[in-house]
């Protein structure tokens, strides 16, 4: 995962899908742990603010920091050491989420694009009007 290369302060990170499942993690052994952490923090944040959509949770402690960012159906959770540059870490995580969203968009567009209908000959032998001709 390129996340840990992006920011030297990130010790572990995981990308979660819309259902909260681990899509990618670095190191891989921490994926489930980070997914549970993100779910617990997001649930607590929902309770605290009495709002459904949580876009960011940030907790900085003496022993390290935890960041959870959600955007476009994906969530990224990261753990850092003590006293991180919070702004930079959040920027890196957001950049990661946006690049993933951009990669997913063309795939979704390709999936949703209707397939062209084949030209079929009518009973008279003339080719039937296709969608292209109509345009």
């Amino acid at each position, binding site marked *: 995962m390129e996340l840990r290369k992006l920011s030297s302060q990130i010790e572990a990170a995981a990308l979660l899908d819309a259902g909260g499942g681990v899509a990618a993690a670095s190191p891989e052994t921490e994926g489930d*742990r*980070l997914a549970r*952490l993100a779910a*617990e*923090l997001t649930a*607590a*944040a929902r309770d*605290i*603010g009495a*709002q*459904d*959509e*949580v*876009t*960011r*949770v*940030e*907790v*900085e*402690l*003496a*022993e*390290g*920091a*935890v960041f959870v960012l959600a955007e476009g159906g994906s969530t990224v959770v990261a*753990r850092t050491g*003590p*006293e991180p540059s919070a702004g930079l870490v959040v920027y890196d995580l957001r950049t990661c989420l946006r690049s993933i969203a951009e990669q997913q968009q063309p795939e979704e567009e390709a999936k949703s694009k209707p397939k062209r209908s084949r030209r079929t000959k009518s009973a008279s032998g003339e080719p039937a009007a296709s969608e292209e001709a109509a345009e």
Partner: protein
Amino acid sequence: MRKLVRLALLTLIAVWAWRRFFGRSGPEERAGISYGDGSSIVLEPGSPSFERLAGIARHALRP
């Protein structure tokens, strides 16, 4: 020139003393939440909401 050196020295001692006695002693703890409607909350250390989030995070940060 001597006055200038003395002034610089006094300034250095004053800055050191201020940091020593009034500066923060440990790493700062903080927590924040942002929501989809654009609003955000900064949780004050010691508040129940902060302790709730800190408890979850501490558990995950333990080696």
